[in-house]
């Protein structure tokens, strides 16, 4: 018997490819939505714990000097510079909290003052220059007159006399020119010095920023490793002197000012030792603030 004629029809599902593409599309859209649509927290604000630290004198001062410094004057000649205005409002080290924001008004005042000073100096030097120029013109006139007289005289003089005088004259003018060149060189030198000074102070400000940042980093690291004793009350302060290798390795920790609670002192010392190596800036100049030793102040609460 043959049942081929009775074979049932089996339908095949279709449009598998379209369905697959649609499924892929759904997932891609969803992932894109998640990745770009939802704003996940990606940045934490850097901790501000500046008040824990003693400000190392040289760097903070330069930080204070920097913003009040006038922009390098364009034409003003040499002696105008190198009079740093008084450092603005750096009263006590603990008050150096978040430098740039708090100091803004002082900086503005200082800037105005410096600007006025600069203008005054510029005027003075300009007047001096003008006077010098007038003097030079007068001298030249006189010289011309003298030369005319000389020429009349020369005409009447003998040949050898004339030759000798001419030679004298040439020597004199040469000397004048040398003098002029010298003055110009001096001016250029002064300008270069000024630019150098500006660059140096700018760099110092940068250094201060780096130093502050790494101070925060060190403080955060030590804080993370500190286990406070149970019997601690209040907010006592411990001051330590930490000897540090250039690699950041802690060599020794000495308590210079105890909190009165030995357990707490020990805890801080241990925390500092545990935090070795301390994060140090790569910049050699900025590292001076930390190496070979740094003073460290710790309080349980900020």
């Amino acid at each position: 018997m043959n049942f081929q004629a009775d074979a049932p029809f089996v339908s095949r599902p279709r449009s598998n490819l379209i369905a697959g593409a649609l499924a892929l599309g759904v997932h891609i859209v969803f992932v894109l939505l998640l990745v770009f649509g939802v704003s996940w927290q990606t940045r934490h604000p850097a901790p501000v714990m500046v008040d824990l630290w003693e400000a190392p004198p040289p760097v903070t001062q330069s930080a204070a000097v920097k913003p009040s410094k006038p922009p390098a004057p364009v034409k003003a000649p040499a002696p105008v510079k190198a009079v740093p205005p008084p450092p603005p409002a750096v009263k006590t080290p603990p008050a150096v909290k978040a430098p740039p924001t708090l100091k803004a008004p002082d900086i503005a005042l200082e800037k105005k003052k410096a600007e006025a000073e600069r203008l005054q100096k510029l005027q003075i030097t300009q007047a001096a220059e003008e006077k010098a120029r007038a003097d030079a013109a007068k001298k030249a006139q006189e010289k011309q007159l003298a030369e005319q007289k000389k020429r009349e005289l020369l005409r009447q003089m003998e040949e050898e006399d004339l030759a000798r005088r001419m030679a004298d004259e040439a020597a004199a003018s040469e000397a004048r020119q040398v003098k002029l060149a010298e003055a110009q060189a001096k001016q250029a030198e002064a300008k270069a010095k000024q630019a150098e000074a500006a660059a140096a102070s700018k760099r110092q400000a940068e250094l201060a920023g780096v130093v502050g940042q790494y101070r925060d980093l060190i403080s955060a690291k030590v804080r993370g490793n500190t286990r406070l004793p149970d019997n601690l009350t209040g907010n006592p302060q411990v001051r330590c002197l930490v000897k540090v290798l250039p690699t950041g390795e802690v060599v020794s920790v000495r308590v210079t000012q105890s909190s009165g609670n030995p357990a707490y002192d020990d805890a801080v010392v241990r925390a500092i030792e545990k935090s070795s190596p301390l994060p140090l800036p790569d910049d050699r100049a900025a590292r001076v603030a930390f190496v070979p030793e740094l003073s460290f102040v710790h309080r349980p609460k900020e």
Partner: protein
Amino acid sequence: MNPELSQDLSLLHLVFNASLPVQLVMVLLLGASLMSWWFIFIKMFALKRAQRDTDRFEREFWGGGDINAMYQQVSTERGEAGEMARIFEAGFSEFMKLRRQAGMSASFIIDGTRRAMRATYQRELDGLEAHLSFLATVGSVSPYVGLFGTVWGIMIAFVGLSSVAQATLAQVAPGIAEALIATAMGLFAAIPAVVGYNRYTHDIDRLANRMESFMEEFSNILQRQTPTAA
């Protein structure tokens, strides 16, 4: 030791930094999700077409056309005709064959026709229900798989925490966030699968009801056509 001061918590970063078991779970769930969406779309197209074909066939059948002509048309293009048309075709061809044989009683003929129609009905229903069990499985299992990934990830995060002197939330947060993504993916795979499963079983039920009603009605029509010889 050093607590990172800034941690990137973007989605991709979390996924690629997760531990290996969690990543495996994520890949598994992603595959399940892709497959279930694929079947969802296949079923969506198939059921749409089935409903459209059934509507068209019922309109033609009850519209008073010639049954023989309709049978001819359906049997030449069985693939395009739709489920109900194929049931009709199977029943009618069986009816013709039985009627041609001599000595068949009317109840015999009708019984044979109904059996042929029922067989085709079962086969068509099976075709419509294919892959639905996968949707059901994904819908019920993938939340547990995701949960497993999460539990594993949190375990690892806490084991890492035990070696730290002072525990802070920042040290476990990334691990837990990573782990929770596994649960999120499990739910992402499960929810559409469950919705699709429920929706399609309902649609298929309704289609099956229509086909069964048609089978009964068509049997009655054929019975009326059969000469009551016996």
